[in-house]
């Protein structure tokens, strides 16, 4: 599904920052992966590159067999819309749209008719348990609710991969569990799930943990929940 080969990324500046160094990584369809690392280890950057939100300098990034390199914004938008769903730490809901409209938005860019996309949005809201809240605006919802809505939004375009950047970073422990539960459930439906987190408890819910340190992959561990970890 995802295949990185010797991927490098440097942020230009007065002191150029080499954040990803020769990353080699393979993630297959349906995997549930977490990426861990201290802040500055390059985990968010990696996620952005995977999500085609950011480009890279050298190496190769194959997504579903297609080389992702030097894409035009338009092309990138099409890939994102088709392949990838995003869940952000800060939710990134649009404040002047209600829950249903927020969830339905990706379909707007796909050109789905309003009635249909609102119906689908309600279906997905039901899935995350917030159907009754469809008419609420983001500022009327709790953090956990907002994150569930953003998960619904990520799911509605039926992506192959969901990239979650610190999805529980802004949540308390109770809602964290809820959100993680939801993500597992989504993964069980066959969607590849990649979660960036610095919380061990969150990472332990996934089946593979990748540790990043200073732009290198420090370790890559297959993990069977509640059982022993075995090195890959």
């Amino acid at each position, binding site marked *: 599904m995802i295949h990185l080969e010797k991927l490098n990324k440097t942020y230009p500046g007065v002191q150029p920052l080499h954040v990803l160094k020769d990353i080699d990584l393979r993630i297959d369809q349906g995997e549930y992966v977490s990426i861990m690392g201290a802040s500055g280890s390059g985990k968010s950057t990696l996620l952005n590159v995977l999500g085609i939100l950011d480009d890279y300098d050298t190496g190769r990034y194959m997504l579903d067999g297609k080389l992702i390199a030097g894409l035009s914004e338009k092309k990138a938008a099409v890939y*994102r819309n088709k392949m990838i769903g995003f869940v952000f730490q800060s939710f990134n809901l649009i404040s002047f749209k209600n829950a249903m409209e927020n969830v339905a*938005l990706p379909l*707007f860019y796909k050109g789905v008719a309003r009635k249909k996309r609102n119906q689908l949005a309600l279906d997905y809201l039901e899935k995350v348990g917030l159907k009754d809240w469809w008419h609420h605006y983001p500022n009327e919802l709790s953090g956990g609710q907002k994150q569930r809505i953003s998960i619904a939004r990520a799911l509605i375009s039926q992506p192959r991969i969901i990239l979650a950047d610190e999805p529980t970073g802004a949540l308390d422990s109770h809602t964290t569990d809820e959100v993680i539960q939801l993500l597992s459930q989504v993964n069980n439906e066959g969607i590849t799930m990649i979660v960036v987190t610095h919380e061990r408890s969150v990472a332990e819910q996934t089946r593979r943990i990748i540790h990043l340190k200073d732009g290198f992959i420090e370790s890559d561990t297959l993990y069977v929940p509640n059982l022993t970890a075995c090195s890959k």
Partner: protein
Amino acid sequence: MKFFEFDTINEIFSTMRQSKLRTFLTGFSVAWGIFMLIVLLGSGKGLQNGVSSNFRNNAVNMVNVWPRRTNLPYKGFKAYRRLRFRDQDMEMLKNHFPQIDKASGIISLYGKTVSYGKEYGNYSIEGVMPDYKDIRILSIEAGNGRFINTMDMMEERKVAVINQKIAENLFRGEKPLGKYIQIGGIAFMVVGVETKTSNDENGYCYIPHSTAQTIYNKKGYTDEFYFTVTGMDNPEANEAFTLALRKTLARSLIVHPDDTAAIGVWNMAENYVQTMRIFSTIQLFVLIIGLCTLVAGIVGVGNIMVITVKERTREFGIKKAIGASPATILNSVLVESIMITGVFGYLGMMLGIGLLEVLSLIMDNATSGGGEGPKVFLNPSVDLNIVLIATGILIVSGLLAGYFPAKRAVNIKPVEAMRAD
């Protein structure tokens, strides 16, 4: 994605709703620019119309020439000789000056008794030629007969054209056409009633010039000349024409070339052209002020668009992350700015035109109450083309003002855009 799709419009309305103040401010600066432009241009035009309407009693290119006394002795003639114009003087002028278009001699008699049946009154009698009608812009409406014509002149007919005033006073509702009136004891048949909407309180009775010459013992002479001129649209040409006219007439009448007071000349065109010049200057001035207001509007729109786009960078980033193409976002910003400037531009246009209409109405009522005094403000109007062009400029500048910052914002990587807060 089509440019104007229902869904896109819906999207835009929802963003407009969430920032009512911004939408209003943008709209207001557009509406205000257009409004001021219209009011300024319209007022300028109204002033011009008002003043030029005061010229309307005569053709604006009318020249009036009349003989006076000489002041200098010349070629054996003593000073203070009373000059008289002869028929051949007019023929000579017509041949000499191609600028002369319509021409008429006039023999004026004041205070002649005119009577019909038992009714009578003292009115001015004017012996004129057919062209006189066009020189003084006299009008005879359909069914009111005709003016003096060439046959009347040739046969020295005893026919008369009376004005509305005489018709009212002598005929008292009777139809004057074909009736005979007595002018100084001689019967004239009324062939026309003139209904010029002039402010003349006086009765005028026009008879053929040739008839007047015979009856009033002025065979071969005329009191004054009236004519219209063409092809001179600047004061300099008119001045030169007046000078040449004096010289030619002086030679013909054997008057000292320096004796300018001997011949009276009133060149209306000279006045008219001058006044119109002042007004075109005022118009230009007003246009410049209007354009400056417009520029202020454009800057306002530009400013607001720049800020808007900056504010929405994060929103654009989110939208891109969930699959919006940059073109879609750009499109929605542009359509939004077109809609705001278009709608409010139209509103400003309507308000401006409305205000001018109200102004015009008030002015009309004010003058009709006070009689037919000189007008200073009449029929304010604006060239619709100018307004449309101005609205167009505003819309285009709104577009550009939205386009460039939006283009930049849209091209920011979604990650960075979402970080912007």
